[in-house]
């Protein structure tokens, strides 16, 4: 190989590498990014069976039931629709009735949402940002009590 060919092959190799990395990145974004829904959004959403989503809303009052071992069931609501969620594990410290929560997981065929993670990360208004914004856009936002 001449010097020029060598240099060209190095550059081609580099570009092929970058191309592969870019392709992988966009493939992964398409496959692995999980969308956020509130219960009322689900009627219009076309979900593949087994597709991972994040479901957010408020923990409906009086729906927290503890089952066998560490199993917990509760309903997530956006004051329009409710979705029943089951979860095995320890609920976060900030998990409370009538407060914002984000669960991540998949729907069972019977319509119950099986969460493998429950997040109650929040700002000072005890509300995850996504949940607060969605509630506001639905017009069902109530200014939380000032402490």
């Amino acid at each position: 190989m001449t010097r020029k060919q060598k240099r060209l092959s190095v550059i081609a190799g580099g570009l092929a590498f970058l191309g592969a990395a870019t392709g992988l990145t966009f493939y992964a974004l398409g496959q692995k990014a999980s969308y956020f829904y509130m219960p009322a959004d689900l009627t219009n959403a076309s979900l593949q069976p087994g597709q991972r989503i994040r479901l957010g809303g408020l923990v409906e009052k009086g729906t927290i039931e503890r089952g066998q071992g560490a199993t917990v069931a509760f309903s997530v609501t956006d004051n329009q629709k409710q979705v029943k969620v089951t979860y095995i594990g320890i609920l976060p410290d900030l998990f409370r009735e009538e407060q914002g929560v984000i669960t991540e997981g998949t729907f069972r065929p019977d319509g119950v949402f099986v969460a493998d993670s429950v997040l109650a990360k929040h700002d000072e208004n005890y509300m995850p940002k996504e949940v607060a914004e969605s509630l506001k856009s639905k017009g069902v936002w109530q200014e939380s009590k000032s402490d």
Partner: protein
Amino acid sequence: MVETGHFALVLAFALSLVQTLVPMFGARMNNQKMMAVGSPVAVTGFALTALSFAALAIAYATSDFSVANVWDNSHSLQPLIYKITGTWGNHEGSMLLWVLILTFFGALVAAFGSNLPAALRANVLAVQGAIGATFFLFILATSNPFARLNPAPIEGRDLNPILQDLGLAIHPPLLYLGYVGFSICFSFSVAALIEGRIDASWARWVRPWTLVAWMFLTGGIAMGSYWAYYELGWGGFWFWDPVENASFMPWLAGTALLHSAIVMEKRSALKIWTLLLAILTFSLSLLGTFLVRSGVLTSVHAFATDPTRGVFILCILTLFIGGSLALFAFRASRLTAGGLFHPISREGALVLNNLFLTTATATVLIGTLYPLAVEAVSADKISVGAPFFNLTFGPLMVPLLAVVPFGPLLAWKRGDIFAVAQRLMAAFAAALLAVLVTALFIDGASVFAALGVGLAFWLICGALTDIAVKSGFGTVAPGVMLRRFAGLPRSVFGTALAHLGLGLTTLGIVGTLCFGTEKILSMHAGETVQLSGHTLRFEGLYPAQGPNYSEDRGRFALLGADGSTTAVITSAKRSYPIRQMTTTESGIKTIGFSQLYLSLGDEGTDGSVVVRLWWKPLVTLIWGGGLVMMAGAAMSLMDRRLRVGAPSRRRKSTGAVPSASLP
């Protein structure tokens, strides 16, 4: 005292403007007197910022609730250490710490940069002053930590309970020393662009600063990871959370910079690329500051959300990133490219390193910003989490780690890959042995797990091989070898240590992810549970009272083979009445390099408690490897050739061992 602090901050802002304008015009007009203004102003600016910071810290230590910031983030019953660390456990205070460290680095350049060419030093200090000026203005205009309350409240609102931990004393200062330390590399780059001149000595000045910043950033990230691990009670060491990524991106780019600066220093090649990397690394630090401080992300780090702050930081971001890149576009063509090299050579290996690391940085950047971009253009809200990063970052890192041992053994300019492969045979054999032992003797080891262990051993043994080969192991007499070993440059040890640390971290990650076990169950007092060969007995819940919280302590006895208690592990549910928050204190028992980790869940109606237990094999190596990497950076800093531009205490420490470079 509080007003003094505020006034000092205003003065520091004014001085930073002087520091920006006077030396820069001085350098332009070749006026020695104007250029000389930079150093004393930088030192004074640092002293004033330190005074301002001390004023706030004293207000915190003495619980002066007439200061709104103290009232909002402190309580008189808090232990003194958390009162003091609370100074930077909030938005305003942490920004003050940010500028304190920025001016600290500026003062270091002023104090130890007497051997820099006058014009270069003037321009570096000017750029440093400009960064400082914008952030001082940001603090004074949008985030004043000294605002008073009238009438003063009697009691404060307490520090966020998650932050009431020793981690707050260590993690943010280390992280900021790293983040902000890269500002020096940025200032040097912009100064070089302003002057239109760059040479190998420039790299010799920049490299120690890069090393210092990288060392602290490594420590900051490792400490943050360990803190999240034990504090959150989720047992995870890395969540690919956007805030974590915000600190990880400058680390990746900084690692690339660390390596490309070597090529530039030794071979005068990759000049323009190194300069661009220095700009990008600090730009990513600024981006991180924006992501964390603007409130676009919700996390423990985003203390409060105020849209004007976000817009302000976005303006700073645009000014510095846009400005420096525009300057780069105009001036880069003036800089001459240097040194040619064969693709298979030390330079070639370092270019490969840069290719992988910058691509990895780009994937992390895309994964972090994509959700924000999608949300901006559509109503969809998406999250990009671990599955994305495992699929993109993982495949990029594995080949990079696999070629790491080759790099330091290749010769400059033109290397012999076969000769290097031969020298690495022993390391390869050790790695292969590790794969076989893992696959055959450890139950439930997958192929991936075995290969992961092999990769870690390959890195560790590769780093040791580097030292062995360079001291002539097996080719010269033992006496000669020892002398050569002692005479190796410090930077060779630094490289080997850093790569060894990388191997240890890899081993820790593979061990934890592939061989860890986990159980969730509800337990009554007196029940026992088995986990990976360890027997634990739940002794019951005991209430206890802390200074500003009450807690329920779950006591667990680790039982020996004969049923006797060998250790007691305590996990607690703490409740902080002032903020009405509950936190979980995890119970951790370190056994060798591994840990038994348990965290308490909710109490059931029948008196049982939900308990989550993990066995985390080799988990401490994840952070231990980080410490070894830091030691590697410190070792490199002691190298004789970095004496130029390095602070004098390092000069002393190398001077104490002059024999190191004699043979």
